[in-house]
């Protein structure tokens, strides 16, 4: 195997394994930019994976399956919003409860599906772009959900940083009391972000039956929702960095498998640790750098329930 071929193989796996993480991380970014911590990703991903599987099995329509998954994910996330925003409950507790609830729910209703299979999405090469050496076929000979994720990264970045909505969302996450005084509805903005964020997380769950594993088993996502929780922080609540983070995790998996196949003498446990180590290094470097510059990257009001009329 030549080096370019090898790089293409690793990059292709990186994108395939990274895409569900990317969707979920984008969802987390949106929700947390508005000030609501989202730890329920694992549960939402499992439920949306289940819904995708069931709808696909019943109707044979991938689009309907995706819509179903997003609705289920949005509804579950709305529940999280209700607890966090309307009831002003503890966001961490609510997220953990949601993760637990979703895992249990998917296990319970998934039981009857064990043994059934659906078809997975085909790759659709993009003429021209797929011919770019090394990168072309990894990034532009993928299924349409991967392409959708590119648009979502760009779209979310544009909305958050270049539109009035984005300014409002970020402000609500930084200084809800000020937004309230300016006449913005903190509640409404937070609800919208949590629900839409949940739908994006749902796309991450849907990617499993759509592409990765087109059969149903308990715990299909094998803990990737928790990796996405970490990636939101790793990405410093930024959609562009979410893309790098997700692909980095995907690449680490791809590299680890490929190194073994090629007989490179690197202990697989070390390779397994690699993305986590890298996360710690990047977090440390960026935090130190930003502290020197006098900035914090975490939305200031993240995790704090908003009480109208409070003075914090």
């Amino acid at each position: 195997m030549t080096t370019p071929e090898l790089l293409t193989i690793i990059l292709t796996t990186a994108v395939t394994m990274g895409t569900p993480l990317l969707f979920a991380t984008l969802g987390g970014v949106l929700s947390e930019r508005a000030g609501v911590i989202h730890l329920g990703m694992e549960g939402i991903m499992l439920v949306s994976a289940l819904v995708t599987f069931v709808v696909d099995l019943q109707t044979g329509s991938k689009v309907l399956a995706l819509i179903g998954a997003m609705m289920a994910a949005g509804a579950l996330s709305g529940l999280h919003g209700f607890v966090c925003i309307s009831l002003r409950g503890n966001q961490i507790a609510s997220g953990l409860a949601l993760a637990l609830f979703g895992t249990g729910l998917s296990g319970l209703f998934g039981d009857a599906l064990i043994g059934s299979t659906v078809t997975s999405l085909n790759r659709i090469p993009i003429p021209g772009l797929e011919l770019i050496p090394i990168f072309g076929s990894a990034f532009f000979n993928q299924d349409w959900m991967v392409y959708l994720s590119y648009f979502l990264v760009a779209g979310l970045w544009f909305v958050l940083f270049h539109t009035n909505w984005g300014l409002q969302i970020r402000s609500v996450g930084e200084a809800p009391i000020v937004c309230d005084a300016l006449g913005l509805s903190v509640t409404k903005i937070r609800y919208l972000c949590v629900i839409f964020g949940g739908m994006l997380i749902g796309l991450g769950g849907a990617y499993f039956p759509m592409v990765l594993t087109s059969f149903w088993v308990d715990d299909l996502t094998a803990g990737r929702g928790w990796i996405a929780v970490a990636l939101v922080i790793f990405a410093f609540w930024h959609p562009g960095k979410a893309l790098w983070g997700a692909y980095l995790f995907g690449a680490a998996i791809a590299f680890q498998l490929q190194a073994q196949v090629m007989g490179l003498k690197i202990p697989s446990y070390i390779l397994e640790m690699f993305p986590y180590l890298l996360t710690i290094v990047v977090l440390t470097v960026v935090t130190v750098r930003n502290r020197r510059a006098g900035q914090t990257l975490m939305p200031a009001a993240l995790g704090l329930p908003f009480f109208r009329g409070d003075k914090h």
Partner: protein
Amino acid sequence: MIKHLLTILVALMLWVPNFASAADPKVAFIYVGPVGDGGWTYAHDLGRRHLEKMGVETTYVESVPETDSERVLRNLARRGYDIIFTTSFGYMDPTLNVAKQFPDTIFMHASGFRTHDNMGNYFARMYQARYLVGMVAGMMTKSDKIGIIGSHPIPEIIRHINAFTLGVRSVNPKASTQVVWVNSWFDPAKEGAAANSLMDNGADIITITTDSAAATQTAAKRGLYSIGNDSDMTLYGPEAHLTANIFNWGIYYEHIYNHVKNGTWKPSSDWWGIETGAVDLAPFGKMVPKNVQDMVMAKKAEIASGEFVVFKGPIKGQDGSTAIAAGAVPSDQDLLSMMYYVEGVVGDIPQ
């Protein structure tokens, strides 16, 4: 973890005192995974369902963390279950502790080595079936490269990889096996990626020591072959799945149940082989030619009669040195602690 706690909580909520006659032993199981895992736990639960079909009253608690198993076990014993099967290596010491507290209850622990007055252990010689499916792979490969997706590098798995490779090389000395470790018992997405890596590197048949059908499905997508593990995975890729090594725990559970019922049970260490039917092969896929099937079935009969022993010297180690001397048969203890590759396996055991 949280899911496990929830399961236990639900189990506690379903607590109902029950007073059955001792003549019909009631049987309980605790599982380390969900019954829906499609592999290890699923196979044990098929065994439990076999008892149910015989009219035996059974129950199970799934996804019980090893650290919390003592409490669950004590609870089951208190509820009057007469036989309790514990099906994970990590349940061994907890089982022994609880067995000492409940001398009238019989405990059976899978995959361990401790016994007590009222505690036995059991396992099945899956390596025998591994040898046979290895023969199928050896005869069906065109590239002479066979990929194995490894879960965790522990003696049981190393033994299975070796038995498989011996089977492959018994019919095709040119062929080699290559292991990629995923360091997980269960991660379908990663197993799929590992299968792709192996096939990108030229493997045309993939087998697994993990539990999901992801490798079978990946092989099917690429028009290549797979060999399943622990349960029949044909329906995930009928055109890819050559066969699988499987457990039939029901046969063993029925045997223990009858002994307890008749009062003839004694603590023992059972390691049942292919001659009992507790270890078997899944039906062959239609791609497997008749002569291959016949050869494998003939070898199966030889193993069952004791005429052929999988691990019998001369067997060379990976580097060509003598691992098992000519004519020697390793003890079960040696088999249970096997931590080297035989000749024909490519790669290293992670340290």
